[in-house]
Every structure is written in C-alpha cells, then in structure tokens.
C-alpha cells in the first residue's frame, strides 16, 4: 500500500528527532531546576514580584503559591472575557457570557484549553494574546514547576518537607525553556507557511465568486506555544486542521514534535535530578512504549478502516484533512491525547470507532504517555508508586521507590490522586447523561452520543482539551460541568502531588541494595505499563463497552 511508506517515514523522522532532542533538552531542564545561578531577566522579575528566589518552600507554601498564582490568572482571564467589548483590539466581539468566561478562564489556567467557542468568532486579539497566549505559557510553566518540585522531593533526603521555590521554578521554566523554544518554533512554523500577522478579517473572493471574510492574526506564535506547552487551544476553531495553523505535512510533523518535545525531556531531566539516569530512562521507556502501542493501534484502526462507510469510501477519510491523510491524522491524534495537548488536526468524532475509543483510552490513562508538560511526569511517577506498592511487597520488603519508603501516609495521598480523575469522569458523564440539559448537547443518541459526552468529560477532567466534535458544549450546563471538571482535575492532583513531594522530601533516601525492587529494569517498565493499563482499564472498561466498544462491534 502506498500509504504505508509515508506513515512509517513520519514515524521514523519523529523518533529520530526525539531521540536527539530528549537528552539535550532533558539535561538543560535538569540544570534549569537545580542551578544556583539566576539570570539577569530572572533577577529583575523576582524583584518585581518581590519574592526571594532562594527561599526553599515547604510543600504547603509551594502549593499555596501555585494556587494563588493560578487564581490570579483565573480572575484576570475571566475579566478579560467579560469586559472584552470595552477593551482595545476586540475586533468588535461581544463579552463572553458568564458561564463561558468561567469555562474559558479555567480551561486556559488549567492547561486544558477546552474551547466551547470558535476562536475566530468570539475572541479578539487582546483576549487571545494577553489572556490566552500568556496562560499558554504560564499554565505550562506551572505544570513543569510542580513536576520539578516532585522530582526534587524524591531526590532530597531529610529535607524537612522543603521542595524548592515555586517562583524560581515558574520564572525559569518561562525564561530558560518555554519562551526561547517557542520563539524558535514559531519562526520555524512561520517559515513552514503558518500565518503570522496583526490583521483583522479580510474579505476575499471565493472560487464561486462570492465574498468571505478571512481572519489572519498572530497564528504561528500561538501555534508554537500551543503545542510546546501541551495546551491545544487553537487560534481557529478548526484548530490544527485549519490550513492557516497547520498548512503542510511538514508543519504537521513539526507540531507533533513540539507536542512531545518537553514531556519526554522532563522524564530525562527527572533521572538527572534524582541522580540516577536509569530511573529517568525507565519512565521514558514506559511513556514511549504506551505511546508507541497506542499510535500503532490508532494508525491501524484508521488505515484498516473497519466499518461500512469507510469500506465503501475506500478509506476512513471523513473528518480528516486530505493533506495529512489517515496516518498523519492518527499520529497527531495519539500525540495530542497521549499528552494533555488537545489540539486536533482531524475530528476525533469521525475517527473509526476503535480509533475514537483509543484516543479516549489515552486520556483515561491520565495522560502519562508522555503526558502534559510536567503533569505527564508526575502522573507517571504517582503510578510508579502504585506499581511499586503492588509489586514491591512481592519481593518481601516494605515497598520503596527511589529509596523512599511507601507507608500509610504516602499511600493515602496516592490513592486520593488515583481516585480524583475517575470520579470526575464517571460522575460527570453519568450526570450529563441523566439530565435534560446534558442530553441537549449531544448530537446523536445511542453509543455514539455516549462517546460524545464521555469524551468531553474525559478531556476536561484530564486537562486535555480536545473535543470529539458533535457535542454542543457552549451551554451553561456544559460550560459549568466541564469547567468544574477541569478545575478539580488540575488542581486537586497538583496539591496531592506536592503533599507527596513534601513527604518524600522529609524522608530519608535509603540506599538501594540487592534486596530492593529495581525500578530501572525492563521488567519494571513492563510492570508499570501493565499497572497503568490494567488499573485504568478496570476503571473505564464498563463505560467504554457501552460507547466505542459497542460501536466497534456492531
């Protein structure tokens, strides 16, 4: 088949690029979060913020800083949305409704970028640039900071629960990582053909001779951070399927690379921070394994195109861009749901039934393969603690991860973390399917309608932000429900992870011996992958059965 070669080609190029970038950026990240030196722009920022960059915060202070900082961002975005018509560069758009402004504010602060509105039809340049794009940067930096704090907690020994300074982590994530790479990425994308301008809508004459307004704007700059920060909020409603955002297979591949760049590098950095490269390697391997398998399955599902309609049409091309094809869409789909990005270059609603189910399963994994910037790493590490606890007893010792004993207090935090998202997803879905306001948003009934609701709640609770399509979510009910899911799905786990980091930082790091469970060997990689799939599988299989699985089998 002629499609197979390009499919393999893009995978090979991507793997090669990541293999090159991961150790390089990983090393840079590790230095970023452990260095004693402050750069000049950073010192300036600290003075402006009036914070002491060398203060070693306890996990409580760190968590309060994260929450406080995010709250300010939330209020600012809410204000920008509600007051849009009074502010410059509004392009004449009206204020967002209250529930919509809340949803959008939470969405961008929580690194989700769920968009109930069409970017080109509701958000002016000021809201886009000063509100949403800024949050694209800082919400990503928050995730990276929390992951860095967690890694430090594991690395330290008897540090009295101190995990570092949030403000330092935040500023360094921006200054040393996100901004420089975003600038390079945006330039590359613009060179590749992505639009970058400050124009308002322009009228163009269409092929049929009619006239249509076409909006340009600072697309490439937003596109770069959208992918890099695993944000996913598109300038246009069509997101990365829009030719101004993602014009060619080359930009498509570049965007996928940007999506995966930091999450993989964070895992490498983790190994360096805990001073055991092999541990980072193992985490990286689990991420790569899960992503590889899901990409392969998704690509197979789309290219083999089971189902009546695709067979008749000669391919499952409905809802996909011809310039990317099935494989290009599948790879993007796996990357965007394996991370917390949520950008789309095809309508997941139109994926084949097993394909749609796979994208959901990717998100249900908790987005750990490789996950959102930072959040993927700490999500994976929490699962590693679960795996260590389950299997660790089997080697006849009190379970320990990286020399930290897992006792009752730790396991309570881990259990709450593992509980949070499933409760949000399942309770949210059940609620949406039980009340008329929820059902009103669904385009279809039956299993596909279920999938629409399930996908939306899963996407919000896991801070992915991608939409299945088909769901009309811009209603007060859905805006409120999804906003709540995004908020709790982001910040409850963050607080729990920081508490866990504090516990670990206070504990002694025990030396490893032949009697301790090795957490860097292939066996552990398989075990951790297995635990992730089984635990998530057991939680979501019943509801998946009623949605995508029934669809696939009928």
């Amino acid at each position, binding site marked *: 088949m002629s499609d197979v070669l390009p499919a393999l080609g893009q995978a090979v190029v991507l793997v090669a690029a990541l293999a090159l970038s991961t150790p390089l950026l990983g090393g840079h990240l590790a230095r970023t979060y452990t260095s004693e030196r402050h750069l000049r722009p950073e010192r300036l920022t600290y003075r402006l913020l009036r914070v002491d960059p060398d203060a070693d915060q306890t996990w409580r202070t760190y968590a309060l800083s994260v929450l406080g900082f995010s709250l300010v961002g939330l209020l600012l975005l809410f204000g920008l949305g509600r007051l849009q018509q009074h502010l410059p560069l509004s392009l004449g758009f009206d204020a967002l409704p209250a529930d919509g402004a809340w949803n959008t504010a939470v969405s961008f602060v929580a690194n989700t970028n769920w968009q109930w509105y069409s970017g080109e039809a509701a958000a002016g340049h000021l809201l886009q640039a000063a509100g949403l794009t800024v949050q694209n940067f800082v919400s990503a930096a928050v995730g990276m900071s929390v992951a860095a704090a967690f890694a430090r907690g594991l690395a330290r020994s008897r540090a009295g629960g101190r995990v570092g300074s949030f403000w330092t982590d935040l500023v360094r994530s921006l200054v040393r990582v996100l901004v420089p790479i975003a600038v390079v990425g945006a330039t590359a994308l613009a060179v590749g053909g992505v639009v970058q301008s400050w124009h308002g809508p322009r009228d163009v004459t269409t092929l049929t001779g009619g006239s249509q307004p076409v909006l340009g704007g600072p697309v490439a700059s937003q596109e770069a951070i959208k992918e890099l920060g695993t944000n996913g909020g598109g300038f246009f409603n069509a997101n990365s399927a829009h030719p101004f955002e993602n014009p060619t297979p080359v930009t498509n591949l570049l965007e996928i690379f940007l999506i995966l760049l930091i999450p993989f590098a964070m895992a490498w950095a983790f190994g360096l921070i805990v001073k055991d490269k092999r541990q980072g390697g193992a985490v990286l391997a689990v991420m790569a394994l899960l992503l590889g398998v899901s990409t392969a399955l998704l690509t197979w599902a789309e290219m083999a195109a089971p189902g009546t309609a695709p067979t008749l049409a000669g391919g499952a091309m409905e809802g996909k861009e011809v310039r990317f094809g099935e494989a290009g869409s599948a790879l993007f789909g796996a990357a965007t749901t394996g991370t917390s990005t949520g950008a789309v270059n095809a309508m997941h609603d139109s994926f084949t039934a097993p394909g749609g189910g796979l994208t959901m399963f990717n998100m249900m994994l908790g987005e750990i393969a490789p996950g959102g910037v930072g959040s993927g790493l700490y999500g994976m590490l929490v699962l590693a603690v679960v795996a260590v606890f389950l299997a660790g007893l089997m080697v006849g010792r009190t379970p320990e991860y990286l020399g930290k004993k897992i006792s009752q207090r730790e396991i309570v935090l881990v259990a709450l973390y593992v509980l949070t998202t499933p409760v949000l997803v399942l309770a949210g879905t059940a609620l949406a399917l039980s009340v008329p306001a929820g059902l009103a948003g669904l385009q279809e009934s039956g299993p596909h309608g279920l999938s629409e609701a399930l996908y939306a709640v899963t996407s919000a609770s896991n801070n992915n932000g991608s939409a299945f399509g088909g769901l009309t979510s811009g209603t007060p009910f859905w805006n409120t429900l999804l906003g709540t899911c995004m908020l709790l799905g982001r910040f409850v786990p963050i607080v729990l992870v920081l508490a866990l980091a504090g516990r670990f930082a206070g504990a002694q790091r025990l030396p490893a011996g032949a*009697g301790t469970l090795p957490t860097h060997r292939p066996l552990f990689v398989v075990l951790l992958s*297995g635990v992730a799939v089984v635990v998530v599988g057991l939680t979501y299989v019943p509801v998946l059965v009623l949605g995508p699985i029934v669809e696939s089998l009928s």
Partner: protein
Amino acid sequence: MNTQTLTEPASATARRPLSVQLREALPSALRKLDPRALLASPVMLVVELGAVLTTVMTVVDPGTTSVGVTIWLWLTVLFGNLAEAVAEGRGKAQADSLRALQEETTAYRLTGRPDPARGSLLDRPAEVVPSTSLRPGDLVVVTAGERIPGDGDVVEGVASVDESAVTGESAPVIRESGGDRSAVTGGTIVLSDRIVVRISSEPGHSFVDRMIALVEGSERQRTPNEIALNVLLTSLTAIFLVVVVTLYFIADHSDAGQSVLVLTALLVCLIPTTISALLSAIGIAGMDRLLQRNVLAMSGRAVEAAGDVDVLLLDKTGTITLGNRQACAMLPVAEVPDADLADAALLSSLADETPEGRSIVALVRGDDARPPVPATATLVPFSASTRMSGVDLPGRSVRKGAASAVSRWVEEQRGVVSHQVGELVEGISRSGGTPLVVAEQRAGEEPRVLGVVHLKDVVKPGMRERFAELRSMGIRTVMVTGDNATTAAAIAEEAGVDDVLAEATPEDKLALIRREQEGGRMVAMCGDGTNDAPALAQADVGVAMNTGTTAAKEAGNMVDLDSDPTKLIDVVEIGKQLLITRGALTTFSVANDVAKYFAILPAMFVVAFPGLDVLNVMRLSSPESAILSAVIFNALVIVALIPLALRGVRYRPSSAAALLNRNLLIYGVGGIVAPFVGIKLIDLLVSTLPGA
C-alpha cells in the same frame, strides 16, 4: 539443637486436615458476621452490605439467579471470616496448654527487711501467699518439686528447672544467681535444690500471659504495612463503587438498564475481596510460623520489620563458629621432635575436660578414647588468673596455655623463650587461630618451650552458603566478636561474612547499630546478656535468647525459646515470606478482575447490544449463569487460597529482581489466566442446574 515445636497440641492442630479445622472455625466465623467486626475491613463490609441488599431484593422478588447470587454473597463474607477464624484457631490449642501453667499456686514469700548480717536469704522467714498476690520486687523461695510462681531472676542459689512446658525442650536447664542464666519463667518447675527468686512481673503481665495473648491473636495490632495495604484496597473499592454506581445511570441512557442485583454482583466481583478476606489470616499465620520455630514475636510489627532487615549482626561464637576451638596442628620449636611435643600436649590435656582439651587428645591419638591419668600426676587446673593448666609428675612439669602466661612461667624458672615461639604464635593468630603454647621442665634442666598447638575456630558447615544467600537477598552480615582484629578477620574471611566488628564491647555494638540506622538501614541482632539489652532495644529486630536475662528478654522484640542465634536468619525469611504472601495475593486479586469483566460485561449488555457476544470469550452458557459463575468463583477462590495464606507462598532466598520475576509470573499472569478457567468450569456446572 532442639527441633521440637512449641507444644505438642499445637503441632497436632496444624497437622489436622484443613476440612476439620474449617469445621471447627465455623462458629467463630459466623459470629464475625457482625458488621462491627467487619469495620476493620471496609472491603468485606461492602460485600456484607451488598449481601443484605440482595437478600432484601430476593425476598421481594425471588428468582433462581437472585437466590443464587444472594447465597454466594453471604458465603463470600463467611469464607473471609473462616480464613481468619482458622488462623486464630491454630493458636487456641497452644493457648490452652499454656493456660494450664497459670493455675494459681502457693508461693513462699520472704518476709522481714533484708539484713546482710544474717547471711543467706534462704534462712529468712517466709509466709504463704497465693501466687496472684505477688508484686515485682517480692522475693520468693522455691524448692524442688514446686512451680515457680512468677517471672523473675534468681538472686540466690542454683537449681535445675524443667522449662519444657514453655520451650518444648525436655532436658532440664540450670538456673543460677548472677550472670546471664538467672531468668526464670513463671509456671516452670524446679527439679532440684532451692532458689530465691525476685519477682519481676505484675500478675497478668507475665511472659506466659504474653505468650497466650500472642498465640491467640487477641493482642494482634495491625502492622504499618497491613494498614497501608488496606488503604489501597479501600481506595480500589471506592473506585469500583463509583464505576458501578455511575454505570447504573450510564447504562440507563444506553437503554441497557441493569438491576441492582446484577450491579451488586459486579461490584463484589471487582473489589479486591480475595486479598481482603485473607489479609488478617496472613498476618496471624506469619506469627504462627514463627511460633512453630519456637520464636515468640512480641508484635507483628517486628515480624514485618524482619523482612526489611538490611544488616544482620551475628555473634561469632555459637552462631558462625561451633562455639569451641579444635586443635588442628602441632608446631614444634626447631630442635624439638614432633613426638615430644605431642606427648607433652597429651599429658597436659588428659584431665582437661574442655572441648579444646579433648580436641588435643583426639588430634594426638587419632580417636576420642582417652588414656587414664597416671596415678602419680598432680593436676594443675586452669584458672583465669594463671591462664594456663598442666600437670606435675615426679621430675617433670608440663604447662600449656596462652602464650604470654606460659612464657612468663618459663622465664620465672630462668628459662629462655626463643624468637621462634613468638613467630609461631604470630603466624597462628594471623590465620585466625588461637595459639596454645606447651612448655615443660624436667628435673635439673632449664624449662623450655616445646611448641605451639594450633587451635582453630571451626566455622559451622553451610554458613558460607547461607551468607551468600543473604547477600543475594541484599542483606549484609556483620560478625561480632571479642577476638582481636587479626583473628576476627581470618574467621570472617573463612565464613564469608561481609564485615566484622572485632574486640567488640556492648557499647561498640550499640554504636554500630546506631551508625547503620543513621544510614537508613534496618538492623537485626540477637543477644542474651544484660549488657546486650541496650543494643537489643536499639535494633529494629532484637531476638533475645530464652536462656538470657530478663533485661535482655524485655529489651528485644522477639524471644527465641531454643536460644539458637542462627535462627535470626529464619526470622528474616519468615518476615519476607509474610510480605510476599500479601503482595502476591493482592496482585492475584486485582489480576482476577480482567477475567471477571469478560464474564460479566457481555452478560450484562448482550441483550441490548448483541454485538458484544464477541467478548464472551469463555462462551458462557447464559448471561445469568455467567454472572452467577463469576460470583461463585469469587467466593470459592477465597477458600482455595486459605491454605496458601496460612502456609505463606514459597520463598527461596534470591535477589529482589528474581523474586519479582517469579511472583509476577505466578500471581500476576496466573491471576489473569486462572479465573478464565475457573469461571468456565463453574459455568459448565451451573448451566446444568434447572432454571439457570
């Protein structure tokens, strides 16, 4: 070494067939159905609530499936209780035989103020009181044939005591005042002589009381690890509760609404009932396994800690070496013929009853028979001050002993000790042996050193392999000895220990333990003397010898009734086995869920979505029988695993990686596969039932 088990009835209980044990445990299991008894295990409480729910629904709307599901849900709870009751029942018999020791006896309590001038305490007047009225500090006198009325230390006299009721060892032991063999246990019987005992325990808090509480499991507190595991199991239960409750609404939306009965069955199958039902039985059985080897653990926490041990402190003498030195070579000084040295060494050892003396005779003569001591001989016994022994014959004196002592003896008689002696002595010391210098003086001659006997510490057979095993488990062994560094290093080398603490004082031991603990390592040790007490208390696992002092027994968290220091290694293995059993059954329990989904989910939804029949990979006969079979399997697997929970999973010392490999394969992969087979078989049976 004593290999008897604690008490005869106990091993008889363990030997009886499981079916009998199960039957006997039934009443206790039924009593445990009281929900208050289940509060400690939220998982089983959920099962019981589910059983109540289905009972109500079955009464309202009876049907074959609902009756079946209800019965089997109750059985699930009952089987869980049964596991615990069986584990506890094993201790009951032991407790009964121990209780017999506690019957009230009369005690002769000394009265009057202590008066040093009056000499022996035994002469003081005594009053007759019941043993229950004795308080710590009271002095009692016990005469041959009487039962010792309470725990305490002998303060005067020597007696042979029959401790078989506590230790199972039938040979009587000597208990005497002073030193490390002064502790006596209440309930044991004095066979000869009279002793005065200072009582050290309150009534009801004696050693036997504690033993009874331990074997009955009534004092059982859940261990840190068990609590953490319970948290995880509870949170899994919470997740599945959310899954099932939300499924009710979601299924409704899909027009595939499910009855509460089916959802309850699903819930019970998904929550980790197997491990929750067996969890406490595993803990009790772990303590029981220690008891079978005559080790009393004062808390489950100590057993668990034993599994975590990183460093073992082992005393050289009696643990690593046989405890006595054996002569292995005779090294004569240059001009002395071998036969002269052999003859003198033999002569000086004829009356020497120590193992060292015997071994010299054996080395010289090649057999154990010893020739009679010449009638003209005057024996010079060994004393701590002279540090030598020997024999005086008419016209000839022979001495053997420590190099410095014998050299002094020679020099005092104006003899000369050659350099060569010093070299020989040095050489033997360096090789880990103990040199014994032999010298003689014939009438009219200058005394001279004949040569040196090489006494060797004999390392117990198999120790090297044992330490290699420990090393593969990640446990470091440190040999503790009073020997000098050179000797210690040589023996350490031979025995294959990892480290050595030479010329060790009790303070050194304590400091070593502290140092290891600072580095985050867990330390186990054993000891018997009063001066071991601080170290025993400091160690994470301290095994006190039963022959030891009361202070040592109270400082440690385990007591070895056989007083066999080697058993420390067994203790570590039992601790590990306990944790492995928990982990293995947890993994098994969770892995089981995969198959249960394949049984139940198609059964639930196949009517609404016929396409789901593809997922019915076991080809179960009907939706009803599929659900019932899963519930039955879920209950029966508990009973099937009771023996494993009581026995513990098989454990061979090996590295963590190897253990994980093996156990993941058996209990992880096996846990996924087993229920597919089990549920299918049960379905074949169930489908033959009428109405199913």
